């Protein structure tokens, strides 16, 4: 019996040590719903027990059913037939299973038929599913759109779509990108106009829309005539009707099971979500941040799958009279993969927990306005941290997954280049993760503010104040690397040059990511010898990386800026 939850000792370890009591307290608000819903928890322990039971079921469906179908789904792909998308047979089968298992409303409130689970659990579930088939996550556990509607739409809008999203009857998509508006969403040009009765209609083309065939769409559109930029954009809830045509499906390198659609809106009726002009700045940003965590977990799942394939192959493949796993270049790749995966996992869960706390606090403030003073400082703290860590983990996990899939092929040698082996698919699937929902370069733009303005420093101070008496030498190494990091930050700030900062932004964000992960792995090391070894390996390699970055920033960076235009013209 394959179970991708139960067979993953690191996920089980993290669940044993993560403290979600406060997250659960906000999410369940005094466990009031236990009176109303038979499946609502009565206390935090009951909630954790339910989370694990549900992950167990997802682990079983993923391991027993989805993973064996993944190669077939990849091969079959998706089709456009008479204007409608047809999923691969395997995809359809597992989607039906997810709906029957009542999993489609994972994060939605119970009153709409959802499970009311926290984001932290969604990221775990997302990884488990993606390890089986990365393409499935884009619709199988798609929660971001439902959650955005739940947070910002009117009660009427919510009642019209959320129960059907939770039952799996409706699929959903975020409809943002256009041919001339990719990374730069301020350039969105799809028009929204109102008729005399105040009803909204959409006209224009959207491109690269993941699961654009979903019944429910959130559409970013230009609602303010003549107003360019973000201030002219609003957010609309659209339900599929005859006024929207799927013009074509893209042929992609990877995630073949997931339809990527080009959509043509022809006077399609839609309703405004929230306030006008806040489509990009507020709602899309919230949606994107939520989706970024999803992609970080998708990437982690691909990395985990790649590692396992590589490890299995390295144990079986005999060359030079021994298994290739005994050869230094191979065991170094495998060890680095596993360390990187666990560094990614611990930061992903930390980020998800912070996002849960931020959302929980905001929810409590909205529900109990009289207590808003009590929540204010925490909301500020966790919002800053969420804004820093979300792009950080999205960048880290997606780049890491690419490296893991790359090395997994390398360990397979020529065999891995062949389609018969899963690593070939993982390599193709991984490649989109560091592009969609914002490229790594855009994650750096999103994170650098928090790195230079002190949010990262404050977080590292907080981590450093914890008790590491079980590993004082490792803490010292981290502190030493922090000095390098601070030195680099001073160097960047003292240069007082925007180009210089932008040029080094990625290095600065990577240094901060390394340090945050170093502390988190050190924290984990308290509970297991294996985790101690992971922390030792990670921190040692990390020290060198940070030192190198620091030197390049302090000593060498300006040469590049002076010369690059002579090189590339």
């Amino acid at each position, binding site marked *: 019996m394959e179970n991708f939850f139960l067979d993953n000792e690191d996920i089980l370890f993290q669940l044993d040590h993560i403290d979600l009591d406060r997250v659960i307290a906000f999410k369940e608000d005094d466990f009031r719903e236990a009176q109303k819903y*038979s*499946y609502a*928890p009565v206390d935090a322990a009951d909630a954790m027990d*339910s989370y694990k039971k*549900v992950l167990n*079921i997802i682990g079983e*469906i993923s391991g027993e059913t989805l993973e064996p179908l993944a190669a077939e789904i990849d091969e079959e792909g998706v089709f456009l037939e008479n204007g409608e998308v047809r999923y691969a047979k395997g995809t359809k089968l597992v989607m039906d299973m997810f709906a*029957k*298992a009542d*999993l489609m409303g994972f994060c939605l409130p119970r009153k709409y038929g959802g499970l009311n689970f926290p984001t932290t659990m969604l990221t775990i579930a997302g990884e488990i599913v993606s390890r089986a088939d990365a393409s499935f996550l884009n619709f199988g556990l798609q929660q971001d759109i439902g959650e955005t509607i739940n947070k910002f739409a009117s009660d009427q809008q919510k009642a019209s779509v959320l129960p059907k999203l939770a039952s799996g009857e409706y699929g959903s998509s975020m409809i943002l990108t256009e041919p001339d508006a990719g990374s730069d969403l301020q350039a969105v040009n799809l028009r929204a106009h109102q008729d005399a009765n105040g009803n909204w209609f959409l006209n224009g083309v959207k491109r690269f829309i993941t699961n654009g065939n979903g019944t429910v769409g959130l559409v970013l559109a230009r609602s303010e005539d003549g107003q360019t930029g973000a201030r002219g954009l609003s957010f609309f809830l659209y339900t599929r009707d005859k006024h929207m045509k799927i013009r074509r499906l893209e042929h992609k390198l990877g995630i073949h099971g997931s339809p990527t659609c080009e959509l043509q809106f022809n006077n399609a009726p839609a309703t405004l979500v929230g306030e006008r002009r806040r489509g990009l700045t507020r709602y899309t940003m919230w949606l994107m941040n939520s989706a970024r965590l999803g992609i970080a977990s998708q990437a982690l799942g691909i990395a985990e799958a790649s590692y396992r394939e590589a490890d299995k192959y390295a144990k079986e493949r005999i060359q030079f009279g021994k298994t290739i796993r005994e050869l230094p270049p191979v065991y170094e790749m495998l060890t680095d993969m596993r360390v990187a995966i666990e560094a990614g996992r611990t930061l992903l869960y930390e980020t998800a927990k912070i996002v849960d706390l931020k959302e929980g606090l905001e929810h409590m403030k909205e529900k109990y306005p009289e207590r808003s003073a009590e929540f204010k400082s925490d909301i500020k703290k966790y919002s800053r941290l969420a804004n820093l860590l979300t792009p950080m983990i999205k960048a880290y996990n997606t780049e890491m997954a690419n490296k893991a899939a790359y090395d997994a092929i390398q360990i397979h040698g020529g065999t891995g280049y062949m389609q018969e082996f899963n690593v070939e698919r993982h390599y193709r699937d991984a490649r989109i993760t560091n592009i969609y929902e914002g490229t790594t370069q855009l994650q750096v733009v999103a994170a650098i503010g928090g790195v230079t303005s002190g949010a990262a420093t404050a977080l590292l101070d907080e981590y450093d104040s914890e008790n590491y008496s079980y590993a004082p030498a490792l803490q010292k190494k981290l502190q030493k690397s922090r000095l390098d990091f601070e030195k680099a930050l001073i160097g960047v700030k003292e240069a007082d040059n925007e180009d210089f900062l932008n040029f080094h932004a990625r290095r600065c964000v990577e240094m901060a990511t390394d340090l945050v992960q170093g502390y988190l792995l050190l924290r984990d090391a308290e509970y297991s010898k294996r985790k101690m070894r992971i922390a030792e390996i990670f921190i040692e390699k990390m020290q060198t990386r940070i030192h190198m970055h620091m030197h390049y920033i302090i000593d060498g960076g300006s040469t590049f800026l002076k010369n690059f235009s002579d090189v590339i013209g």
Partner: protein
Amino acid sequence: MGLNLIVLVKQVPDTQNITGEAMKEDGTVNRAVLPAIFNPEDLHALEAALTLKDTIPGTQVHVITMGPPSAIQVLKESLYRGADSVALVSDRKFAGADTLATSYALKCAIEKIGNYDIIFCGRQAIDGDTAQVGPQTAEKLNLNQITCVSNIEKVDTEKRLILARRSIEGGYELVQAPLPVLLTITDEGYSPRPPSVIKVMTFKNASAEMSEEKYDESYIDSKVEQKSNQAINLWDINAINADPESCGLSGSPTKVKKIESVILVSADIRMVENSQDAISGMVHELIADHTLG
């Protein structure tokens, strides 16, 4: 009009995923290495019933199992998938039952529910592999039975008729029968649904009230009972109004004389030339040593 469906299920040792030596030295089953699972074909039988419930409004699915307290796990699994009521038939007096005594006890339990339209069983259990309990239960209830059903083609609630596809050697046949009827279901036509996570959370702490002294061992941990739902009915010998003489060892004509651990050893392969003479020679040899004929 909804139907009243009863599914008979069994908890069995997982003989397909053995984690160690399955037999002890004395030839008895080593239960420690055999995890207890839902008998696979019973899960298909449950799915057949739930599929009918999905299509015929007002249909009720009742699940019965006979076994030790640990068997409530298969009843919980049934609740997780959508059963409306479940009952554990359990009593020391049932111990040592062969298929005859088992089908008698199940008959009594079915009569306690009463007013049934279709009874579903798995074709056979993977522990005893007898495939007898379903047919025997039908006989005791004086019911029509269709065995080895791979699919229910149609149920006409007005005319009270069922049309079932029955697997036979080399193909299938369509069999029509009036209701009520007992079916034994194979693993060919129905793909068991996953548990509903909402129902898992609802029933995860479900248990049956049991007194400790009734059993040698109890798997029920009363401490975890947080939600006091009475989802699982517990029926002892009195509850189903069964005659003690027909139950357990006293109701079982099957007497085990000896258990032997048989290890099948495959013989060497002998290649025979592909010619008329060689094949004819081999056939004669097989007749001579009484393998054939």
